[in-house]
């Protein structure tokens, strides 16, 4: 029997082309298994063949996801795959979005199953879990071995034609779909039983689990902009020259506070970008490309805003857990409120 044809998708890093400096490379495809794909091939055995590896730079994908997915889908279709495996992407934001978007596109355009893997806090999980099979992985590539084992076992089940309509029972993120089941008692009877259990302190299980979202109501500006104090904040790793506050370039819960009193624009002798998650060469030529101090000063001079706050706060938003992001956000927010700031322009890389 012919082996089942698999195409594997990787970013520039796992595709062994290079690091952040190559995050802008265009979609491409190679007719071999690469990196994690070799492990996949070894564990899948001879009934499967990884016929090609599609690779795209993380920034290329993030800057225009639809176009990147379309280009990759065209490249991949020429290899006539029967299954697509993407990643796994662990907790990487851009890579996760690429894997999710590509799986969705391949399923739709080529009508073949696709599977990827991510960490629960990857923003792409919520974006794609309703239509893409996403295996639960650990946060980093240290858990690659377990992630690949999980993917391999599911790929074998897909090939065997097993129904995979209950992803949560397979170590994957639930699609959030509801499926009809037949119960012995009618709903009114079940509801009364539940109520009686509740009233008498007996255990009971709700039939309707309500998801809990962390919602923040948008704050409205309560005074005209021309009277407001506006602060600049960035997650792109802005630090004072030489990083005297010693902020890590990622995976951090730390912030920097950069005084801008008397500055009309950022110059490279005063600040720099310190961030391990994107190629900082362009913003390090001109830091106003990251934090638009010059344009904000013009607005202050022209009276469009009341005042530009004299401190810029920053962090390095790379591999940042949601708990750390909340901590960083609260700390910056608390300081800005204490300092009488009403509005923030946040720039994100």
């Amino acid at each position, binding site marked *: 029997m012919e082996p089942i044809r698999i195409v594997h998708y990787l970013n520039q890093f796992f595709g062994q082309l290079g690091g952040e400096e190559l995050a*802008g490379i265009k979609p491409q495809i190679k007719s071999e298994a690469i990196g994690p794909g070799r492990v996949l091939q070894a564990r899948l055995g001879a009934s499967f063949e990884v016929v090609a590896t599609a690779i795209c730079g993380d920034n290329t994908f*993030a800057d225009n996801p639809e176009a990147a997915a379309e280009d990759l889908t065209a490249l991949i279709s020429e290899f006539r795959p029967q299954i697509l495996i993407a990643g796994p992407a662990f907790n990487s934001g851009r890579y996760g*979005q690429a894997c999710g978007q590509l799986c969705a596109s391949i399923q739709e355009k080529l009508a073949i199953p696709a599977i990827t893997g991510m960490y629960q806090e990857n923003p792409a999980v919520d974006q794609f879990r309703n239509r893409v099979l996403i295996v639960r992985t650990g946060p980093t590539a240290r858990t690659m071995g377990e992630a690949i084992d999980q993917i391999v076992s599911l790929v074998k089940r897909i090939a065997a034609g097993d129904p995979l309509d209950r992803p949560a029972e397979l170590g994957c993120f639930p699609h959030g779909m509801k499926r009809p089941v037949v119960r012995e008692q009618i709903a009114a009877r079940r509801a009364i039983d539940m109520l009686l259990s509740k009233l008498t302190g007996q255990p009971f299980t709700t039939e309707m689990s309500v998801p809990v979202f962390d919602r923040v109501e948008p704050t*409205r500006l309560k005074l005209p902009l021309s009277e407001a104090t506006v602060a600049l904040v960035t997650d792109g790793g802005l630090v004072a020259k030489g990083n005297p506050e010693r902020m890590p370039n990622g995976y951090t819960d730390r912030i920097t506070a950069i005084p801008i009193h008397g500055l009309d624009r950022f110059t490279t002798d005063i600040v720099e970008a310190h961030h391990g998650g994107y190629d900082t060469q362009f913003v390090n030529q001109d830091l*106003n*490309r990251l934090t638009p101090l010059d344009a904000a000063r013009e607005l202050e001079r022209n009276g469009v805003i009341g005042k530009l706050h004299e401190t810029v706060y920053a962090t390095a938003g790379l591999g940042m857990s949601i708990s750390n992001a909340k901590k960083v956000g609260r700390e910056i927010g608390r300081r800005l409120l204490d300092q009488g700031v009403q509005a923030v322009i*946040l*720039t994100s*890389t």
Partner: protein
Amino acid sequence: MGIATAQICSMKQVAAMVGSPRIVTGRSVLHPTGDPALAPEAEQMLRRGIVADAIRALAADGIPHAA
């Protein structure tokens, strides 16, 4: 209480999903408010435009979290 925010970013879907109330399109993940491919004056115009969009967004109500 609270601070009005406008976020200049390129990964807009992610920003919308986590509930960012005012999202303004940045030029690139690599340089949100600039573009090294442009001449200095054109780049300055680009930056003024993006920041002006953020200012306009700050004056608006903001979109509640849809998720």
